[in-house]
């Protein structure tokens, strides 16, 4: 379909994933190379055909497995000749670099850009609590300056407050919220690469250990080792490639308020709401046209935010929308997080959702393939003050 910010020129031509697991003992670079080379091969290309590379977050962030490999490391390891490259954290969520790759190919700065995200947090943090590793020095700075002194060190704390206020204002219950992790687990059971595949029941959820009320253990995703990658190409450069190109119909990059976890005017909304508004500005497609949703679930409440931000239900009405889980089930009208998401599949940190959207649009989900033969998929990534979205189609 033409139109949209890239006029139909930006397409996804391949996707790849490394081994995914807990404490694999492999380096971030090793996992990254596996995902990147699989994505390139999946697109029917060789490394020599790829002339762009992009990733989140790049170097310069506390490591601990959060940044599996910088693009410099990957370029050097593969001898990749790039005409365009970029890594960024200050961008539209963890898929921001994929959005920027769409711009690069549309403008002709590159023909084929491989975009990846890799983590090896499970191995890097093994044997030591994340907090003790990060904060052993006893001091906090940056945005943690205003949260860390009060013991609010984790996004679990920062997000449980808006979740509590949303439940207070709109009556969302834990039983309703459980639909998100229970759906993720049901789908993970069909995904051989998922971390947690054993069935999860409502009782398990309601009796789970609280992390930061109202969020319990099963509302929080699971750190893992793994990398995901896609190849974004310009449509005319993709002629003759084996896969049906997936059109990037629109992207959401809005950020209308100060990017903080606590100063947004309405604490029951997030950056996702601004991102979604810009996603729909650029396209004539609407939420009702979407057949498949891959929505960030670093915490279950974030998926709730994405669902209402994208307009699948009205603000405040997400409880009845997800109650019971039928609407979001694999065989429902809006299959959600079909690989198990990050809650059960593992924290591939955003790019896993883009990867899964592509797999499903190509009809290659195997046991977990959505039976509604999706043609339009939305990907929403990030939480709190971080967010980016993409709308993909087979058209």
């Amino acid at each position, binding site marked *: 379909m033409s139109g949209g910010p890239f006029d139909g020129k930006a397409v996804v031509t391949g996707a790849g994933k490394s081994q995914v697991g807990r404490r694999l003992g492999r380096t971030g670079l090793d996992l990254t190379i596996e995902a990147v080379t699989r994505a390139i091969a999946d697109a029917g290309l060789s490394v020599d055909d790829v002339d762009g590379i992009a990733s989140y977050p790049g170097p310069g962030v506390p490591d601990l497995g959060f940044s599996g490999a910088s693009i410099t490391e990957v370029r050097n390891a593969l001898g990749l000749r790039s005409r365009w490259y970029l890594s960024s954290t200050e961008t539209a969520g963890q898929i921001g670099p994929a959005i920027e790759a769409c711009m690069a190919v549309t403008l002709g700065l590159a023909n084929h850009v491989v975009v990846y995200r890799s983590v090896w947090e499970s191995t890097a943090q093994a044997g030591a609590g994340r907090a003790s590793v990060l904060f052993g020095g006893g*001091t906090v700075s940056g945005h943690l300056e205003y949260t860390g002194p*009060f013991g*609010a060190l984790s996004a679990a*704390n920062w997000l449980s407050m808006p979740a509590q206020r949303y439940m207070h204002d709109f009556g969302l219950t834990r039983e309703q919220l459980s639909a998100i992790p229970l759906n993720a687990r049901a789908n993970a059971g069909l995904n051989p690469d998922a971390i947690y595949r054993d069935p999860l029941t409502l009782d398990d959820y309601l009796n789970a250990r609280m992390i*930061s*009320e109202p969020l319990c253990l099963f509302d929080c995703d699971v750190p893992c080792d793994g990398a995901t990658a896609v190849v974004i190409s310009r449509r005319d450069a993709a002629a003759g490639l084996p896969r049906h190109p997936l059109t990037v119909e629109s992207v959401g990059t809005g950020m209308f308020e100060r990017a903080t976890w606590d100063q947004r005017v309405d604490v029951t909304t997030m950056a996702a709401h601004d991102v979604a508004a810009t996603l729909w500005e650029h396209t004539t497609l609407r939420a009702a046209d979407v057949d498949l949703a891959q929505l960030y679930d670093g915490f279950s409440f974030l998926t709730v935010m994405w669902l209402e931000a994208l307009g699948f239900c009205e603000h405040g009405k997400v409880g009845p929308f997800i109650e019971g889980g039928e609407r979001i089930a694999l065989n429902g009208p809006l299959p959600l997080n079909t690989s198990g998401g990050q809650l059960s599949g593992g924290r591939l940190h955003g790019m896993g959702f883009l990867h899964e959207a592509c797999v499903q649009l190509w009809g290659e989900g195997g046991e977990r393939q959505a039976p509604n033969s999706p043609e339009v998929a939305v990907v929403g990534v990030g939480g709190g003050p971080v967010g980016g979205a993409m709308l993909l189609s087979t058209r």
Partner: protein
Amino acid sequence: MTDTHSPAYARPERRLLPQPTAESAAFWTGGRDGQLLISRCRACGHFFHPPGPVCWRCRSTDVGPEPVSGRATVAAYTINRQPWIPGYPPPYVVAMVELADEPDVRLITNIVDVPLDEVRVGLEVEVFFEQWPAQPGPDDSPVWLPLFRRATATVGGAR
């Protein structure tokens, strides 16, 4: 004590501490004089947080710390149950409080001396300060963390 059922607040063995910057020093040290100092724009009159060199509303750079009443309302809260910091055991209440002087301004803080099941949205609270020793750094001042407890004196309002 305002409530005999309340577990009296005990200062934790350890907190992670800020290293005040030129911009944040007033916020972290106002407690020395019992004052909660919040950045205020002298052009439009609004308070804002966190501190910075410019007002995000009107973009005036005529800004600086000013004392507020220390009264606030709980906007949202969580009971943290996960041990994150050795020496600061859970449970404890982390809250966003909205300042009476400027409800758009929220602070992340702890609500203490209130039974866990009595913390709620709308609870009126007031500031007190907890002093911690200086951390090695460019500014070696002690810091005074603003914590909140149930408001006691009521000015024309019910508790």
